[in-house]
């Protein structure tokens, strides 16, 4: 039986109560909308992308503790990183959250993001955690279309 404490770790609860970078960066030049078809939650992720570097990043919207914390941790981690690093981390996180693979050599370290790993034990909640990452992926690709968790 999965334990709820694995899912709602203190770090997650903290990022839910006080989401980081919960704003539109003043010079944002990329944005994408994510939509969770299961619950109707929407988030908007903003990037201030300069010369392949994420100079600033933020998000807005209302979601559950898991999706809010996931988005918050994402922005905290990626500020100042390159688009290529962000893309690699997207793939790593996607694998982690959907529980499909063990990390291979040379993949990015998880650090704090490890706190989200408990979600793989809760199949109904995986999409809450992946929403921000799919939205990031769309924003990096410069896609204006809304991404949904059904895709």
């Amino acid at each position, binding site marked *: 039986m999965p334990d*709820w404490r694995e899912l709602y770790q203190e770090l997650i*609860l903290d990022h839910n109560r006080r989401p980081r970078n919960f704003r539109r960066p003043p010079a944002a030049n990329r944005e994408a909308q994510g939509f969770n078809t299961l619950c*109707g939650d929407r988030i908007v992720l903003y990037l201030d992308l300069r010369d392949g570097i994420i100079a600033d990043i933020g998000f807005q919207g*209302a979601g559950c*503790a898991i999706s809010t914390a996931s988005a918050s941790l994402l922005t905290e981690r990626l500020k100042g990183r390159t688009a290529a690093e962000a893309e690699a981390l997207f793939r790593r996180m996607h694998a982690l959250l959907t529980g499909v693979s063990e990390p291979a050599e040379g993949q990015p370290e998880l650090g704090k993001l490890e706190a989200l790993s408990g979600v793989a034990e809760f199949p109904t*909640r995986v999409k809450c955690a992946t929403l921000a990452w799919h939205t990031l992926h769309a924003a990096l690709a410069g896609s204006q279309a809304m991404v949904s968790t059904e895709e």
Partner: protein
Amino acid sequence: MASLSSPTRSRPAFDVEAVRRDFPALQQQVNGHPLVYLDNAATTQKPLPVLEALRGYYERDCANIHRSIHQLGERATEAFEHTRLVAQRFLGAGSAREIVFTAGATAGLNLVAQTFGRMRVGSGDEVLITAMEHHSNIVPWQMLCQEKGARLAVVPINDAGELIWEALEERLTPRTRLLAVTHVSNALGTINPLRQIVAAAHARQIPVVVDGAQAVAHMPVSVAELDCDFYAFSGHKIYGPTGVGVLYGKSEWLERMPPWQGGGDMIRSVSFEGTTYNRVPYKFEAGTPHIAGVIALAAALEYALRLDPAAAAGHEDGLRALAAERLAAIPGVRLIGTAPQKVGVLSFVIEGIHPHDVSTLLDQQGIAVRAGHHCAQPLMERYGVAATSRASLAAYNTRQEIEALAAGVAQVKEMLG
């Protein structure tokens, strides 16, 4: 002299423990706790007679219907057609020919939109629905309006979750070609005053299509009394199998409507030059249906009738009142849908806590509720929320389960607050 059959003798109390024994699924533990199943508006659990009917068909009577001249085919056809009589009696319909088997409420509403709707609605006309409809009573009409160049008009609701009567009357215009309305709201629990609504529409020659998905399990329904033109429901929300439902239609309409889907069973004769259609209701039942499901639906409806719909409704109403009181007493909890006339559907939001988190944490305590928009996104928007938690009751729920829900919600607040 005191007599045992004294007419003043009160009805025996509703024996919920006896009812629970009929439902094997209720006997299980979930995450180490006894299951508290409060997601009945999504689907109900199934009693033994329904499970036995499904099994009986596949074990003994498995044959196609209306076409097999052999013993098994006869048995299957007889059991299948028996359900039509049970459904007729259950809905108080005038004739078994007015009972069409469908895949569920959604299929029934689409059938009406694609046949009756198509023949009635034209360019510049209006189709009237309400703000509390399930997506399955919105989208088929939207599709029809798009196809025909018609307009979809919507009756608004007040904060309690009731239709605004003056607005309803205002929107019954000379251009309104039909009104589609839910009997009971799946997200709010509101019971609409259908008889008055039908009377108001009929006074203007406007036919009324009713989505009965959330009503039939919770109150006695008589289409003869309501005088509605169509009434659709799903078997699975009234103790029956999934994938099967009933559409009642007044025979004067059914006779005039074109068929919906083409195929076997709905025809009288076919040649490449043309086809003559079978009579009502078979005209609307193309292809091999969910035979086992229809047969088991009779067991479900008979079970509901045996429970005594009025007694079950009384029991559920007591639970609803208790749940509303307990939930409202928890600081930060807001109930959505507070109409005086409502069934046991309790939609609520907890300040600062998302319904998804509520569901996951209640599930850890064995309590099943629904979180989401309940296929009623326009309604959620009306209340300014993306989603709610929803506890929905059935006749087998108990006071202890309501107490467990209230304690669970209080605990969720502590964990995440």
